[in-house]
C-alpha cells in the first residue's frame, strides 16, 4: 500500500517526528514517481538543494524540477529567477500549467510553510491545488495532481495538524519499534469508511523503498498472556448459575403476565353464568373487611 500512495492523488500527509524522520521516505516516493515518468516539482524550503539532491543519481536529478526557497526565502537578492508570490505563488504557477499528465508536488516541508504563512491560506491553497482535477469545464484535461507534504508533528499544536489531516486524502504517520520503521497509513476516500493499515519498511541507501514484514511476534512487548478478567460470580454468597434441570424448569415456567394462547382463549371464551368481569382478591392480614360504607356517616 505504501508504494501505491501516489496513485490516489490528492494531498498525502507524511507526519514524522524526531525519532522517525520522514525526509528519506519523501525522497523515496519522489524517486518512485520520477521513475514512473511523472512530472515532479519540489518546493525546497527546509534544506538546501544540494542536500536534497544528495543520494539521487543523475537521471533522476535531471527529472526533478526544484524550486528553491531555502537560500533566499524573502527574496532579498531580487534576482529574476525568484518566483513571485513565494511558495504559494509557485504552487499556483504549477497548477496553471497547460500540459496534461500526472504531476507530483513534494513540499519540503509543510511545517516551514505553516510557520511562515497563515494556516487558512495554506489550507485553501492546498485544497485548490489538490482538487484541481475535479473541476469540470476545463478546455484541456488536466492530469492527476498529488501533493506530498512533510509535516513535523511536534512543531505544531493539535489545531493546524487536525486541520491539515482533515484536508488530506491519505495520512502516513511514521513510527516503529527497535530500529524498524513502520508507516501507519490512513486512507480517506470521499464517501466511504477510512481504511488504515500498518506497513513496515526500510529505505535503502539509494532511496528505494523496501517493504517488509513486521518484526517477529515474540519480541513484541504486548503479547503477554492476558490477565483473566475478574469473574464477579466467584465469591458470592448465593448461586447465580443454573444447572441444566433448573434451566429447563425456568424455560417451561409460565409467567404470570405472559400472554399465552391459553390465557387468550380463557379471556375470549365467555364464562358460563358470568357476564361482567371479576376482581379476584384475597384479603391480607392487615385488611379490614368492614362492609359498612364510611361515607354513610356523612351528613349532607
Amino acid at each position: 500500500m505504501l508504494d501505491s500512495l501516489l496513485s490516489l492523488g490528492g494531498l498525502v500527509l507524511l507526519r514524522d517526528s524526531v525519532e522517525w524522520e520522514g525526509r528519506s521516505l519523501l525522497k523515496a516516493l519522489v524517486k518512485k514517481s520520477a521513475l514512473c515518468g511523472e512530472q515532479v516539482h519540489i518546493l525546497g524550503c527546509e534544506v538546501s538543494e544540494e542536500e536534497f539532491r544528495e543520494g539521487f543519481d543523475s537521471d533522476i536529478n535531471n527529472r526533478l524540477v526544484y524550486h528553491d526557497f531555502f537560500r533566499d526565502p524573502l527574496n532579498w537578492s531580487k534576482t529574476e529567477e525568484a518566483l513571485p508570490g513565494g511558495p504559494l505563488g509557485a504552487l499556483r504557477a504549477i497548477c496553471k500549467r497547460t500540459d496534461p499528465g500526472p504531476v507530483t508536488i513534494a513540499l519540503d516541508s509543510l511545517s516551514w510553510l505553516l510557520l511562515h504563512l497563515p494556516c487558512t491560506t495554506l489550507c485553501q491553497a492546498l485544497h485548490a491545488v489538490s482538487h484541481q482535477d475535479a473541476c469540470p469545464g476545463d478546455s484541456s484535461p488536466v492530469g492527476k495532481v498529488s501533493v506530498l507534504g512533510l509535516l513535523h508533528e511536534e512543531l505544531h499544536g493539535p489545531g493546524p495538524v487536525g486541520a491539515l489531516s482533515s484536508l488530506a486524502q491519505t495520512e502516513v504517520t511514521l513510527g516503529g519499534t527497535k530500529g524498524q520503521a513502520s508507516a501507519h497509513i490512513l486512507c480517506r476516500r470521499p464517501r466511504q469508511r477510512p481504511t488504515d493499515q500498518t506497513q513496515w519498511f526500510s529505505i535503502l541507501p539509494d532511496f528505494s523503498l523496501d517493504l517488509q514484514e513486521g518484526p517477529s511476534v515474540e519480541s513484541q512487548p504486548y503479547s503477554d498472556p492476558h490477565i483473566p478478567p475478574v469473574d464477579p460470580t466467584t465469591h458470592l454468597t448465593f448461586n447465580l448459575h443454573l444447572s441444566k434441570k433448573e434451566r429447563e424448569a425456568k424455560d417451561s415456567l409460565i409467567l404470570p403476565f405472559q400472554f399465552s394462547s391459553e390465557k387468550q382463549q380463557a379471556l375470549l371464551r365467555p364464562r358460563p353464568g358470568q357476564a361482567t368481569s371479576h376482581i379476584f382478591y384475597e384479603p391480607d392480614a392487615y385488611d379490614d373487611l368492614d362492609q359498612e360504607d364510611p361515607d354513610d356517616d356523612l351528613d349532607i
Partner: protein
Amino acid sequence: MAAVATCGSGAGTTGSAVATASKSNVTSFQRRGPRASGTNDSGPRLVSIAGTRPSVRNGQLLVSTGLPALDQLLGGGLAIGTVLLIEEDKYNIYSPLLFKCFLAEGIVNGHTLLVASAKEDPANILQELPAPLLDDNSKKEFDEDVYNHKTPESNIKMKIAWRYQLLPKMEQIGPVSSRFGHYYDASKRIPQELIEASNWHGFFLPEKISSTLKVEPCSLTPGYIKLLQFIQNIIYEEGFDGSNPQKKQRNVLRIGIQNLGSPLWGDDICCAENGSNSHSLTKFLYVLRGLLRTSLSACIITMPTHLIQNKTIIARVTNLSDTVIGLESFIGSERETNPLYKDYHGLIHIRQIPRLNNLICDESDVKDLAFKLKRKLFTIEWVQDNYLRQERNIYPPGFSYLLKQKDSAWGEGSLQHSTFLMSFLAKATAFASRLVRHSEPLKQTGSGRIHQAAGPRLWHDGRRQEAPGLLGIPP
C-alpha cells in the same frame, strides 16, 4: 337586540342610532366566501406552502428535514426561520448525508435551494443527492429492507417483557403524508430532470473570492461577508422576506452551508485557540439568524466542531443556533467493539431544541439514539430497542434506567449488577404474588418505585398504603 337598545339610549343618541342600524342586519359579522386556493391573501387564513405544515404543539410552520425519524425527534420538523446545526462526525461520512437529504427534500417539494460550500462545487453536490422513494414499488422494497434485518430477532418473541413490543418503533413506516417528509435511497442518485426543474443558487467560495494572500483585518472574514451578502441578495430579489410581492405562490428558501468554520472558509478557529478572528463565526451566525427570522427560509449548517480548538466557541455557536444535532461515529473508537452497539454506525446526540414562542421545548426523553446507514437507508433508533430485543434478564424498570446511564458501573456482568438483581428478585417474588390478583397495569416510574394502581387496599387506617420502594427499607 332590545337589551342593546336600552343600553344605547343610556349612552346617548349615537348609541341608539347604532342599535337601530344593527337591527336591520341579523348580525354584523359577515362570513368570507370560499376563496380559491393559490390566491395571495394576507388574511387570517394560513398560507399553505407546499412541503410545510403547522406544528401541532405551537403552531410554528415546519418543514421536513428529509429524514422522517429526525423530524419526529425534533418535534415534527424544522421551524421556518431557524437554523439546524449539525456537528460533523470525525471523518465526515454521515453528516453530508443529512445535508443532502435536506436539499433533496427541498427539490422534491419544489422549494428554492441555496447551496454554499468552500470545498465542493454546489453543482457537484446537487448531482449527488439521494433519490426519493416516491412510488409504491420502491416503498415495498423499502419495507422489506427494514424488516429483513429485524426478522432474526423478532422470531425470538419476548416472553417476559412482551408489553415492550407494543411500544411504537422510532420509524413511522406507516402512512407518511406525501406532502411532508419523504424517504430517500442513499444508493441512488436523484434523477437529472428533478434537478433541472428546480430553482437553485450556488455559492462556491474559491470562485467568489479573489485569491489574495493578505487578509484584511476585519471583524468578519471576507468569505463570510460575501456569503451573507449573497444570501441577502437572494432573499431580497426573490421576495422571501415579503419585500417584493410574489406573483406566484409563496415559496420557502432552503439554505445549506457546508463545513462552516473549516479553514477553507478562511476562518482560523480550527487552527488556533486564540486566533485573530475568533468572533467571526459567531457574528456570522448572529447576522444569519437575523436574515432567516425575517424571511421564509430554513437553514442547515454542518460544522466540524471536533476541530475547533477553543471549546467556548462551540458553546457560543450552540447558543446562537436553534437546533443542534451532534453525530458521533464509532469508526476508530473503542465503542466499535462494544456488543451493545454492534448493529449501529454511530450515535446521534440532540444537543438543543429551540423554544420558539414557547416557555418549554419539545425535548424528547429518549437519550440514547443511534443511527445506522444500511445500503439504502439511514435509520435512527433508540439503542435500548436492541437491548430489549435480546432480553437476557428480568429487568425492573428502575434497573434499566441505571443501565441506560452512560458509562454506568451497573453494566452487565459487573458485581453490582448481579447482587442487585438477586436482591431485587428476592423482594419481587414476594411482591409479585400480591400483584397477580390485580389485573390493571402498573405505572412504572424511572426511579424504581412501583406505584400500585388503585386497589381495594386503600383507606386502611386513614392513609393510602403504598408499596415499599425497591431501594427503600420496608418498615
